[in-house]
């Protein structure tokens, strides 16, 4: 039994090397998942670790410490390409959840409907991981989350940060979320789009990622390739473009509805990103 709140990564990794622990930051996924079951034996609280709540920019990109909350992101001074991430942050649960929940926790929880995933995929995010036993590694986000509630993280490993590589100047972003009520809602589907326009107003680069329509949120690479040279107002989405998706029937909507709605949503996200 124990509750450990280390202030250095070294101490945190030592705890993990000693045996498995429930890693907790904002608690916004840990507690709902627990329900009425007894508490875990050991907790590792990562919110006091030096640097974990920092957002830093450099020539190589932007780095979000693993305890950076959604509210930290909303308040941070970030370039327009992070507008999608900010929009996603504002759509996470409620103010209470945004004040506690973290970006890193969102990806580690690996929900198919994780609000952060599409945007981070569109930003080409990398996950920075450390371990006392096997050393550090960087894993691209699309390889980090492997399935519903599954990641590549080993028991002795800890996510240190989420890193976004330097992005083309002038790239803009948008995030669209579809739910059955205004707030506190799990997405039926969501789309993030990053768009870079050429000087004629046509798309020169685009990244589109869709969440809640597959076990893990997906980038739509074929669509991205075929949209180069197309004006945002002329975007069409075909069945083939959606082939990376495998929507399911659940209480929020059936598969055919998801496929149908996401098509319109993708168009809207690209248009919104492209009309900044």
């Amino acid at each position, binding site marked *: 039994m124990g509750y450990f709140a280390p202030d250095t990564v070294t101490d945190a990794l030592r705890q993990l090397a000693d045996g498995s622990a429930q890693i907790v930051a904002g608690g916004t996924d840990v507690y709902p998942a627990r329900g*009425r079951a007894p508490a875990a034996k050991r907790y590792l609280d990562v919110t006091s670790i030096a640097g974990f709540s920092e957002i830093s920019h450099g020539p190589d990109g932007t780095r979000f410490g693993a305890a950076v909350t959604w509210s930290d992101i909303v308040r941070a001074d970030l370039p327009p390409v992070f507008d999608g991430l900010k929009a996603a942050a504002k759509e996470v649960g409620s103010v209470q959840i945004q004040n*506690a929940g973290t970006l890193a926790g969102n990806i580690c929880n690996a929900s198919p409907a994780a609000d952060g995933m599409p945007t981070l995929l569109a930003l080409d995010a990398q996950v920075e991981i450390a371990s006392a036993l096997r050393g550090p590694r960087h894993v691209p986000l699309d390889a980090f989350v492997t399935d519903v509630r599954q990641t590549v993280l080993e028991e002795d490993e800890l996510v240190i940060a989420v890193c976004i590589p330097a992005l083309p100047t002038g790239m803009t972003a948008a995030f669209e979320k579809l739910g059955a009520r205004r707030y506190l*809602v799990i997405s*039926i589907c969501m789309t993030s789009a990053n768009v870079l326009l050429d000087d004629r107003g046509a798309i020169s680069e685009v990244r589109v990622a869709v969440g809640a329509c597959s076990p893990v949120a997906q980038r739509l690479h074929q669509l991205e390739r075929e949209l180069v040279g197309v004006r945002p107002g002329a975007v069409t989405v075909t069945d083939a473009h959606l082939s990376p998706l495998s929507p399911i029937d659940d*209480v929020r909507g059936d598969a055919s509805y998801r496929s149908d709605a996401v098509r319109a949503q993708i168009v809207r996200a690209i248009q919104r990103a492209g009309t900044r």
Partner: protein
Amino acid sequence: MSKDFTHHTLSFRLNQAIVVASPTPGQRLSDVLREELGARDVKVGCDAGDCGACTILLDGQPVCACLTPAHQVQDRDVDTWSGLYRRDPAAKALADSLKGHGAAQCGICTPGMMVSATALLRERPDPAESEVQDALSGVLCRCTGYRKIIDAVMGVPAVTTGKSHGVGSSIPHVDADEKISGDLSYGDDVAPAGCLEILVIRSPYHRAGFKFGDLKSFAAAQDLTTILTAADVPGRNLFGVIPQFVDQPVFAEGEVRFRGEAVAAIVARPEIIAGLDPESFPVSWRKLPAVKDMQSAQGEGAAEIHEGRVQNVMCGGLVARGDAEAALKRADVLVEGRFRSAFVEHAYIEPEAGFAQVLDGRLEVHACTQAPMMDREALEAILGMDAARIRIVPTGVGGGFGSKLDPTVQPFLAIAALKTGQAVRMRYSRTESMQSSTKRHPSDIRLRIGANRNGKISGISFFGEFDTGAYASWGPTVANRVPVHASGPYSVKDYRAESKGVHTNNPPAGAFRGFGVPQSAIAQESLFDALAEKLGMDALEFRIANALENNVPTVCGQVFEQGVGIRACLTALRSAWKRESAAMAAFNSSNTTLKRGVGVAAGWYGCGNTSLPNPSTIKAGITPDGRVVLHQGAVDIGQGSNTVVSQIFAEALGVLAKQIERVGADTDITPDAGKTSASRQTYVSGNAAKLCGTALRAQVLERINVGPDATLYFEEGAIIAEDASGMHRLNLSGMSVDADGFVMRAEETYDPPTEPLDANGQGAPYAQFGYAAHLAVVEVDTEMGTVKPIRFVAAHDVGQAINPMLVEGQVHGGIAQGLGMALMEEYIPGRTENLHDYLIPTIGDIPPIETLIIEEPDLHGPHGAKGLGEHVLIPTAPALLNAIKAATGVRLTQVPATPARVRAAILKGTQ
């Protein structure tokens, strides 16, 4: 420095005072605040961050205490609502604004709501509406419809309609201070910290046989105080709210009939309960075939869920007048349809909770309830114990809406307290509450309506099946009420309405605001629109042309010579209907994806029990020191009976409501004012209060020997009566005092005059009906299928508004629930057993609501007043469905009209 809390206590500032606590690893902050540090103003509604009731400020920022590891607040600042209210003048001013708007109804969400609002106002002293919605979005409210909360936070002026005092005045709730301060104790706030707790073991299957393992060894190994099963029920292991249908066991015996049914309960110290995995309980299950819908329940080979209820039909109801079939045959225009609705969860923010103890050989149960006397009757049978030895003390009720009429925690608490001899408590988890409490009946309705060329309804034929789940609960009431109401508030000469309650292996469906009438209204009001369209008539004028009137018989053959207010409600909507229809046309001509629609619908509802005795008794007295004490037994679940009954009583006595001291519905000291259901408290208990106040006044006047026009003043130890001849003083100190401590007293009873219904449902089921008509404007995103309500105009005939502000509050809250039922709420056993998969409207989902109060006085109502609580949500859902039809051209026949269903209907309609 890195902290290892394993062997250290926690220290932080709670409401600016340094406190220490010793949480266990991973313990929720909410738990530590409430139990170790006594901050019970922090409410717990879901333990999952879905409801926000536990919102606190952590270093000034709102977070859910239920999601915060207690250890995370070391050396930090934690503020709860109670602390802010007492310390921060801005917070106090905000609370006063809330009170002025009547924006705390049951009050359970108030602390979380106010903490969130305080944080907002510190950053944005003059927030826009959207900023208020963003900031308060994390707190769910099930009573108010949020609009008055938004107004209160934005500081807009409060309702000023009506008189300055007495009946008809918008005085603040008489119990507002204890709610807005966070001081009111609800079901889970009464028990002393550390007392024994109860954890119920429930079935994970819809139907299953079960066998216990070695309970004795398990209890010993886990250090349990005791385990309760059916064998521990001292009396009859059955309860039920309708005497002929008492069919639900406290603990199942041999077989469970629905997922979530109780089989056993663990009683143990809190630290034992916290460490116990319910999965480890020694019970083995044998899954059995279950029926999940009404069709298979009535199909061949379906097992009888209750022996003798053939084909799983519980009971039915019938109202027949004239010859519906012949009328439909000769109708010029005929429409028909099938309409279906889902289980709807009450989703009060306060889960069922209570506390029990045995004192001097008597059992005391403190719990949230809508019906304390019925709780006592149920326990009398379950415990085999004389009612005189049972005391029910209702706590504050954090929302009820019908589901807290049935016993929930009470039998477990009572049996455990008696068996252990110790004080016990329990609070349902949100999942447990959703699995085991009653629901609104799913319905499957087939309806045909005919009209002649001139637009007069010629006949209606209605057949509705209602899924009553595994146990009867209030199912028979739904079966009775629906045929009486399924015509809507219209004149229909040839009518046949048949209902059927069907058992399934679903959770019991019971009472929920409207007892089946909201479901039947969806069918009837949808088809009225279809009929008007077919006739080429305006939908509103069609309704006005067919509206019921004074001296015209209802479908039960009941003739009201006065008080029928539906035409007035409908005509009140005319100007909004014209204005909004024109605005819709303009909007739609310039938009392709977004489409607006306007819809209307009406409703009626009989106040009080259907053709059954339904008395309320109100007692009051005057103490030797000159206080007026009102024993107000009409349980206030947020709807405002404390205020309304006090206002009526005070008016009759001739004092101000705020001078009245209230005593609640404690069964030891307050007479039975009946259950809080059937929209009966304003009407029935209000009448009893009026009689009681009048009788007490007569005694005072006689004693002082002054005429009826004298003005009374109550002072310390005396009553002063002032009349034309001057001041007359009555000293109370020398008068003899009775057992209740009164020198003068009155106790009066009122029972509504009704008559039995015959085999065809003809008779006088209610002494009065209330009437309503709603107009809804929606905007549909036709690509996504999402429906965004833009505004409502709601006309309600309440006879006489005892308190117009509270009328508005009921209207807002009812519309929010009707909107939820129409657009998003669908309880699916095993799938939506929490408040993130089961969606209720948030603060961003309720548009502005304009309330038009119509006052067509009723002969029987106190000052002409009629009931209101249930009436409100009856027209809401059909008004929304009619608006969706106007916007998109497609009619939804199944609720909720989720985005997926709306989009599917649009695609089908455009094929």
